[in-house]
């Protein structure tokens, strides 16, 4: 009798095994979608230190109550505003440029109201929350404040570096992109820092009020 050949292995269940693995990986993994608002917290300081005195006109006070309503204090009066109006108000405050003499703001394009901020370095945005404020409202307010800063930084970036053909946010994204080469990054870093120094984000979060 002729030598028997090895029987062929049935590969029909291979697909089942592969499906099983596939489903396992689908269930246990997560497509990376992490992005968000980067912030830096102020260092912890003992509360005994003397409070820093800031001129009232340089403070833009935002207060959010437990019903998620917003109130702003600027130009000497209190007002209840909608979230959609907040960005324009913050821009108006930051861009005011009411400073005189050495406080004068070179690039501000605001209406130089005497009761509003002197210049970009002096302007402080302060945010106060109630303990019962919803997190989503807090994030929306943060987002609008960052948007206001980005709007001005974009404008100043385009003014200072018109040849690059991109604004601050685009340049920042390019800087953070791991595919940008390091030489390019160095150049961008310098320019980004110049704009960040021109318009610093001075953001103060007051202690939450007791409800």
């Amino acid at each position: 009798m002729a030598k028997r050949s090895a029987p062929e292995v049935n590969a029909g269940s291979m697909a089942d095994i592969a499906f099983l693995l596939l489903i396992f990986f689908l269930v246990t993994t997560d497509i990376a979608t992490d992005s968000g608002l980067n912030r830096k917290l102020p260092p912890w300081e003992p509360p005994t230190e003397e409070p820093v005195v800031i001129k009232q006109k340089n403070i833009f006070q935002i207060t959010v109550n437990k019903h998620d309503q917003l109130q702003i204090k600027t130009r000497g009066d209190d007002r209840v505003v909608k979230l959609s109006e907040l960005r324009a108000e913050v821009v108006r405050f930051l861009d005011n440029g009411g400073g005189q003499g050495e406080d004068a703001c070179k690039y501000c394009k605001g209406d130089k109201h005497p009761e509003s901020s002197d210049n970009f370095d002096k302007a402080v945005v302060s945010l106060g929350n109630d303990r019962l404020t919803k997190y989503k409202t807090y994030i929306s307010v943060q987002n609008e404040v960052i948007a206001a800063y980005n709007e001005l930084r974009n404008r100043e970036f385009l003014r200072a570096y018109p040849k690059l053909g991109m604004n601050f946010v685009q340049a920042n994204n390019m800087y953070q992109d791991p595919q940008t080469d390091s030489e390019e990054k160095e150049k961008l870093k310098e320019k980004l820092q110049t704009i960040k120094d021109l318009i610093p984000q001075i953001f103060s979060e007051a202690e939450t009020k007791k409800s």
Partner: protein
Amino acid sequence: MSKFKKKKEGGLPPISTASLPDIVFMLLFFFMVATVIKEDNLKIENSLPSADQIEKLDKKQPISYIYAGKPSERYRSTMGSESRLQLNDKFASPDQIKAFVAAERAALREDQKPKLIMALKVDKEANMGLIMDVKNELRKENALKINYTTKKGEATSNAGR
């Protein structure tokens, strides 16, 4: 001529499934490469708020996650319905953050330690009181780089109530 009828000629030949495993393996490899294994099992509700001024979080940097939100349905009877923190796989209180940050730092190389980012993944319905406590604890621990993880979208869409 044979007694038996010949098979019908007209029928479609069966489709070969021999290449099916190859296709599925290809999918499998795609998912293995494009995804990461979930860090934590969530015991809380975690629908993130949306924002549009966002920056991407670089996965190469060291990131620690702090979750907060209402306990999910099955834990509600024991944990109540108030917003809670979750660190790693357990419910936690804000004073446990100190130990959490220390443990996360200890797991890193020396030069990576100052780069640690704390990503706050907080449910949009959570109260700010809890978040303020967390932030104060982080400030005490000198873990100052934080990221409010959000979805991409219009920030004003959060306000709908």
